[in-house]
C-alpha cells in the first residue's frame, strides 16, 4: 500500500500530465482550424484544374498527343508509392493507420511479383516502414522544418517523382495519404497520380465544355505543361488533407488522454482520502483505547 506522501506525489504528477495534454489539445484545435482553412482555400484551384484538364483531354481525344505522364509506360512492373504521414507522433492511430494501409498494399504488390519503391513524406511513416521495407525506401522527404505547408513543398515532391518517371524509374505512382472526413475520422486513401487518370465524366459537368476552344499554344503543349502541375496539385492536396487529419487525430487523442488523466486523478484522490481517513480513525482508536485503559 503506497503511503500518503506517495499518493500525493502521484496525484500531482498526473495533474501535471493532464495540464500538458490539455494544452496540446487546445493547440491542436487551433492548428486544425488553420489546416482546415488551408485545405478549403486550396480546393478551388484543384477543382478548376480538374475541369480544365478534363476539357483539354477531351479536345485531344486521347490521341497520340497525350504525354507519357498521362498514358503511362504501358507496363505495371515497378510501382512507386508516395506515403504521406505526419512528422510528429502523439496523434492516436493516425500514422500507423496510413502505414498499415501502405504495408498491406506493398505486400500485395510484392506477392504479385511487382517491384516496389517507396518515397516517405514525413518522419513517422518512415520510422514504421523502415522496419519491414528499409531496402525499398528510395527517398525520404522531411517537412519537419516547414511551418506552414506551401505549394512549393508539394511542388518539390512532385518534381522528384516526375524526374524519376522520366528516367524510367517506375511505371505507376500511387499516393498514400489520409483523407480528412471529420475530427474523429480520417480514412487512409490511395490515389494513382501517374499515369494520371482523368475522369472523363467531369468533362460533362464543366460549363462551356462543349464550346470550341482556341488553344494557345497547341493543346498537346498545354497539356504537357498542365500534367506536371496537376501532379503537384494532387500532392499538395494530399499534404493539406494529411495536415488537417493529423491535427484532428491529435485533438481527439489528447482529448482522450485528458479525460483518462481526470479519471485517474479521481481514483487516486479516493484512495488518498480513504487512506487518510483510515489513519485518522486508527489514531483516534489509539487515543481512546489509551484513555479507557487508565
Amino acid at each position, binding site marked *: 500500500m503506497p503511503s500518503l506522501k506517495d499518493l500525493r506525489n502521484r496525484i500531482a504528477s498526473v495533474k501535471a500530465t493532464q495540464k500538458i495534454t490539455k494544452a496540446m489539445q487546445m493547440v491542436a484545435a487551433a492548428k486544425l482550424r488553420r489546416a482546415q482553412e*488551408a485545405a478549403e*482555400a*486550396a480546393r*478551388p*484551384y*484543384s477543382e*478548376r*484544374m480538374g*475541369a*480544365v484538364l478534363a*476539357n*483539354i483531354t477531351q479536345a485531344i481525344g486521347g490521341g497520340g498527343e497525350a504525354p507519357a505522364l498521362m498514358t503511362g509506360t504501358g507496363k505495371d512492373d515497378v510501382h512507386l508509392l508516395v506515403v504521406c504521414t505526419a512528422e510528429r507522433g502523439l496523434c492516436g492511430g493516425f500514422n500507423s493507420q496510413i502505414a498499415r494501409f501502405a504495408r498491406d498494399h506493398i505486400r500485395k504488390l510484392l506477392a504479385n511479383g511487382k517491384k516496389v519503391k517507396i518515397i516517405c513524406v514525413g518522419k513517422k511513416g518512415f520510422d514504421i516502414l523502415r522496419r519491414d521495407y528499409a531496402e525499398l525506401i528510395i527517398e525520404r522527404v522531411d517537412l519537419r522544418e516547414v511551418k506552414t505547408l*506551401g*505549394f512549393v513543398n*508539394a511542388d518539390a515532391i512532385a518534381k522528384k517523382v516526375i524526374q524519376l518517371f522520366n528516367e524510367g524509374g517506375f511505371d505507376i505512382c500511387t499516393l498514400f495519404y489520409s483523407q480528412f472526413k471529420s475530427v474523429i475520422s480520417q480514412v487512409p486513401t490511395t490515389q494513382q497520380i501517374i499515369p494520371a487518370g482523368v475522369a472523363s465524366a467531369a468533362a460533362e459537368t464543366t*460549363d*462551356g465544355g462543349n*464550346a*470550341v*476552344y*482556341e*488553344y*494557345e*499554344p497547341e*493543346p498537346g*503543349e*498545354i497539356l504537357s*505543361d*498542365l500534367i506536371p*502541375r496537376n501532379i*503537384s*496539385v494532387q500532392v*499538395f492536396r494530399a499534404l493539406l488533407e494529411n495536415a488537417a487529419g493529423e491535427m484532428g487525430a491529435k485533438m481527439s487523442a489528447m482529448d482522450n488522454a485528458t479525460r483518462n488523466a481526470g479519471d485517474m486523478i479521481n481514483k487516486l484522490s479516493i484512495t488518498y482520502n480513504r487512506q487518510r481517513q483510515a489513519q485518522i480513525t486508527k489514531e483516534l482508536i489509539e487515543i481512546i483505547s489509551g484513555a479507557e485503559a487508565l
Partner: protein
Amino acid sequence: MAEAFKFELVSPERLLVSEQVESVVIPGAEGEMTVMAHHAPVMTTIKPGVVTVKTAAGNEERYVVFGGFADIVPAGCTLLAESAVAVGDIDRADLARRIQEAREDAADAKDDQTRTKAEQFLSQLTTLESAILPA
C-alpha cells in the same frame, strides 16, 4: 462603360480574386492579351508577368503571377496561377531567389531543348523584375 464579366484568379494556396471586372490583361505564353466580356473561348498558358485587372467599379489592380494558365469562356475568365501576389506585396528576395534558381536551371540544362526553355523562363523573370521594380 464596357460590360462586366466574372474573373477569378486562383493560386494553389487560395482564391485571390473573384469578382466582376471590365477587362483583364493576361501575359499569355504567345503574347499579352486583353480579355473582355464575350471573349471567344481560349485556353492559354501564361508566362511570368503582371496581370492587370480593371474591376467593374473602375479600380485597377495588378498582380504578379509566376506561370500558370488561363481558361477563358464568354461568361468569364479563370486564371490558375502557380503563385500569385499583388504587385504591392511582392517580395524582392523571393523574386531574386527565383531568378537565381532559373539561372542555375539554365546552367544545368543537359540538352538544347531544356536549356532554351530555362533561358526563356529566365529572361521572362528578369523582364518581370525590371517591369515591377522601380530602378
